[in-house]
């Protein structure tokens, strides 16, 4: 069934189709519509789940952790400051190896108070141990939500689905809501490896001494390494049922490309538009979209980029004191590429706080990357007028 809907509701429907059993969330713009719709679904019976109201995002994640530890499928959603408030419990969820799925609507961090999109909220949670999947369209949002539960439950790690504020969250476009029977075939009921069970009581989350802590972390890192293998398998299984696949990264018109754009989120769409226009005038240009940021698809990215002359990474985020975060991670991935194959990397910072990224902005980046001898700075900021 194809329906025109906003990205937020695409998340809600993905959650509905995934037969989530417990939802706990606290409203925050621009995420609120996700849980508002879910609350309606719980109330009118479309989703027979328990919706737990709480007084903060910290409590929302705490409730999800409890529910997930009890073995049920669990979801929450948040944005920006709300995600920041959850920070401590994001570690608890990941360290507890709980397959919680959360939607984060990318919103710029305050101050200055801002409700528009950028990626600093989710990227600030980089080292909490959550898988991060960035989306480009409302269809991808729906598909990724369903995929996220299977991925999370297969490897026992929490997954964050990330969508841009407004450009997806509040934008209406057609979404194919995969039939329930197909989703059921794809996503079996969760079987928890460890769960709170009164008939077999254990203490969870207690003290771990130095003689076991590293072993726990090692296993968490192993799960992340496994994800690099499992995520494409899950994507392929979904693709076999629906015809829609995304990959951990996507290469778009990269064959023989001399210049490659590296993007994430909705900037990717507008960049595709520019790539198409330039290709039709004969330019050897392509695009690599990063969907999965954690675990970072280093090997895939390395092989996609090696051989190009120049790479322009477009970052709607900034690590203060360093550079655009995707650019720095990409630069690090390219370090092992032999010098002769290693492209020159240009890191552009743009679109912060929801500033619009139009085709002409991307055109300018393409031209500059092509024409400059070398990047004159680690981070090249686009459109700052001071």
């Amino acid at each position, binding site marked *: 069934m*194809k*329906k*025109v809907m906003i990205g937020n509701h695409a998340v809600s429907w993905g959650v509905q189709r995934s037969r989530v059993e417990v939802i706990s969330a606290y409203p925050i713009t621009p995420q609120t519509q996700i849980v508002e719709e879910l609350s309606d679904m719980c109330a009118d019976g479309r989703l027979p789940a328990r919706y737990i109201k709480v007084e903060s995002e910290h409590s929302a994640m705490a409730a999800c952790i409890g529910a997930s530890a009890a073995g049920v499928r669990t979801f929450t959603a948040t944005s920006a400051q709300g995600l920041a408030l959850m920070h401590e419990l994001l570690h608890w969820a990941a360290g507890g190896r709980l397959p919680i799925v959360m939607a984060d609507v990318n919103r710029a961090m305050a101050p200055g108070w801002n*409700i*528009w999109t950028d990626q600093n909220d989710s990227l600030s949670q980089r080292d909490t141990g959550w898988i991060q999947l960035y989306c480009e369209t409302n269809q991808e949002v729906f598909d990724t939500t369903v995929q996220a539960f299977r991925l999370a439950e297969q490897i026992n790690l929490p997954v964050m689905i990330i969508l*841009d*504020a*407004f*450009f997806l969250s*509040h*934008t*209406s*476009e*057609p979404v194919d809501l995969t039939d329930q029977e197909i989703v059921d075939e794809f996503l079996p009921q969760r079987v928890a490896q460890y769960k709170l069970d009164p008939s077999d009581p254990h203490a969870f989350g207690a003290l771990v001494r130095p003689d076991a802590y590293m072993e726990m972390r090692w296993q968490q890192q192993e799960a992340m390494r496994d994800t690099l293998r499992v995520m494409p398998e899950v994507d392929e299984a979904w693709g076999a049922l629906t015809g829609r696949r995304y990959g951990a990264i996507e290469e778009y018109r990269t064959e023989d490309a001399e210049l490659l754009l590296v993007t994430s989120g*909705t*900037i990717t*769409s*507008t960049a*595709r*538009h520019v790539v*198409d226009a330039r290709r039709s005038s004969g330019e050897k240009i392509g695009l690599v979209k990063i969907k999965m940021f954690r675990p970072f698809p280093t090997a895939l990215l390395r092989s996609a980029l090696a051989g190009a002359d120049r790479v322009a990474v477009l970052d709607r985020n900034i690590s203060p004191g360093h550079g655009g975060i995707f650019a720095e991670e990409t630069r690090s991935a390219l370090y092992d590429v032999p010098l002769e194959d290693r492209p020159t990397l240009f890191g552009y910072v743009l679109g912060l706080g*929801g500033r*619009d*990224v*139009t*085709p002409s902005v991307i055109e300018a980046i393409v031209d500059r990357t092509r024409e400059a001898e070398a990047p004159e700075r680690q981070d090249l900021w686009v459109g700052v007028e001071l």
Partner: protein
Amino acid sequence: MRELRIHGRGGQGTVIASKLLAVALFREGHEVQSFPAFGVERRGAPVTAFLRFDDSPIRLRCEITAPNHLIVLDPTLIDAVDVTAGLEAGGTILINTDRDPASYVELTPRFTVATVDASEIAVRHGLGTRSQPIVNTAIVGASSSVFGWFGMEAVEAAIADEVPVKLEENVEAAREAAEAVRVAPTGEMSNV
């Protein structure tokens, strides 16, 4: 690809109007994308919404600065906001007003102007109040005849999908507005 911009005031149903257009166009087989100007909403304050449609998937994900056409839900906005900013020459402006389209002499030389008294139609069907009519369904009905992109069947289906109350009244308002709309083609001089 066609791009449309809708100007209204908070409370008039501007964002729903863009969604209704998107659903009607989708039902006619187009790829669609509609969205509000992102920001904080307030009753009575100027509100903008956007619509794109095409026959292939829509790649652009940015605001619309050079629309092909305009819809204006509140005629007082024409003086308050630069509504024609970036509007393509020869584009159509559909205005909710009781005025004759040819009377917009400042617009007619460069644009096609269409008018319909959607407020009066809405109030008559019990949609909103006289001081705050909800005109989105009427204006979508008028769009159907002005632009010719979708038929009344698609409009009715869109209303059934997206408007939770007063289904019959909304459909009737859309039908009436489709009949009542008047058009002054680009270049037509005023005769008033």
